[in-house]
């Protein structure tokens, strides 16, 4: 083990002592007039969130294929699928449970769920925290008192807040996720019972069937198949599987 060394303070001469004391008084005066806080004056200011911030979740019904992936994957059980007037099932989010992991967004094969930079998902009571589908389609109404947005900057060894006049844009326009193209295939043809549930489920019209002389011909159009996996989930014999295109 190394022997301990005594800690010795710097030895200032008189000139240096005056200089450091004057500097300290200067900083104190400056801070009392224009404080250098490390915190943001929310809600008058908002922190500028990075584009991959995980906040309030938006939903686009046109892109939803009702595959239930989001509700299956949600580790907090915050997503319930509810039947919409058009008989389709769409997600709802209970923000009393949501842990903002955004697994739902990552799992959404149609790209129907989208992240926003809204971090202040706050409510007056528990009931309000349940967000029905209708309220997920557009940004929620939030009273914006923010006149500036704030960014942290590291200058030399110091953390500075950079304040910019104006509102931060809360939408995130990320490009659609890169998806590995998948296609539904039958892995046990002889076990197909010919119920055509797959055909009925398919939203892209990729599965077709035709009956001719005592045989039912099933066909998956691999060009039309988007690899959403709805048929795989619904096949009553579990003989369909997603494979790489």
């Amino acid at each position, binding site marked *: 083990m190394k022997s301990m060394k005594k800690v010795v303070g710097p030895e200032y001469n008189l000139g240096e002592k005056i200089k450091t004391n004057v500097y300290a008084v200067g900083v104190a005066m400056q801070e009392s007039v224009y404080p250098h806080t490390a915190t943001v004056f929310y809600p008058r200011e908002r922190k500028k969130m990075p584009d991959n911030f995980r906040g309030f979740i938006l939903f686009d019904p046109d892109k939803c294929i009702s595959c239930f992936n989001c509700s299956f994957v949600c580790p907090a059980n915050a997503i319930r699928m509810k039947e919409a007037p058009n008989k389709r099932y769409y997600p709802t989010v209970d923000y009393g449970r949501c842990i903002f992991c955004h697994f739902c967004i990552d799992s959404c094969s149609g790209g129907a769920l989208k992240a926003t930079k809204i971090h202040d998902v706050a409510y007056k009571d528990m009931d309000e925290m349940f967000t029905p589908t209708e309220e997920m389609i557009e940004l929620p109404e939030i009273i914006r008192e923010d006149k500036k947005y704030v960014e942290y900057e590291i200058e030399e060894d110091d953390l500075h807040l950079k304040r910019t006049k104006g509102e931060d844009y809360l939408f995130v326009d990320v490009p659609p996720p890169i998806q590995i193209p998948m296609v539904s*295939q*039958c*892995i046990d*043809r002889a076990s197909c019972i010919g*119920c055509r549930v797959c055909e009925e489920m398919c939203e892209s019209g990729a599965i077709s069937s035709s009956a001719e002389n005592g045989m039912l011909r099933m066909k*998956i159009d691999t060009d039309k198949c988007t690899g959403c996996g709805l048929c795989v989930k619904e096949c009553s014999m579990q003989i369909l599987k997603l*494979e*790489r295109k």
Partner: protein
Amino acid sequence: MATAVGAGQSEWEVAVPEKPLKDKTYFENLKAKVIDTNLCSRCLTCAAICPGGITVVGNKVDFPDYETKCLDCGACVRVCPRFVYEPKSGLGDYIEFIAGRSKRFAGQDGAMVTELLVSAIEMGMIDRGLFAGRDEKWATEMFHVREPEQLAITTLGGTKYTFADVLPALKEAVMFTKRGVGIVGTPCIVSGVRKLQQEYPIFRDRVKLVVGLFCTENFHYDDITKFLQEKGVDFSKLVKTDIIKGKFISTMTDGKVKFKVAEAEDIIASGCNVCTDFTAVESDASVGSVGSEKGFSTVAVREENAKKVIEYIKEKGYADFGEADTSQLDFLIGHKKKREENIKGDR
């Protein structure tokens, strides 16, 4: 079982079965030919395969809302063992008839059914065995047994003289299994499994052990419970039901109620009145009480897989074995063979 990636196909054909009533759905065909003619055995093979919703309503197999929900795929008529009924009877083909008594488990007779299924799990032949257990009111419930320890539920063994939904549970088990499934059931259930296996590879590949039970008849739950209650059976005290030498014996914690089975003739399920198979001839092994001493099960070992399990049981010393006397089965085999007449009568 696992299929390699890239092994899938995008085009395939499914044979569509014949429809005797051309402009009706397959379910209506099944209903007209099997259910309404009282041929239906309530084996639930149809319900196991039906993606629409064949189920049991009261004492009958039915499909509420079939008009809108039947997909008209024909799977039900493909698998129903009585749509094109070929009655089986006799002792069937077998390698050997033996008597056995498990040292590990308690059951109806020698608990050889339990022993066969549990040993098959231990050997790695199957990863789950389906048992027909019961609730405190003696209604059957299906259990997927994966560990021998689960047999601590003592109601899993033993005979329930009422139907069990074995085949719908089999469909589910087949979807989950990695190694294979073992099941036990009455002869009609065994015939149902064979039809499923004959028609669909998924069942062929994954059902690895089919144990049959000797069976003369069975009863609908509501009928038999009402009947037994009238006879003075208290279900909260009932521990065992037996049919021995023509007598139905209900053993309760504080005594027994006995009567002749013939008295229950009117409530025998209609499908049993046209059933001629006593020994489950299509099984891998079938088990019953007649043919061996009290406390032993009579086991008909029919196929190689069952033979292997019996050899494993012998090697491990899990059971005592003795000789079975097949001549004792003749009476009940003959009794059931006579029911062929009822089939013609009904058609």
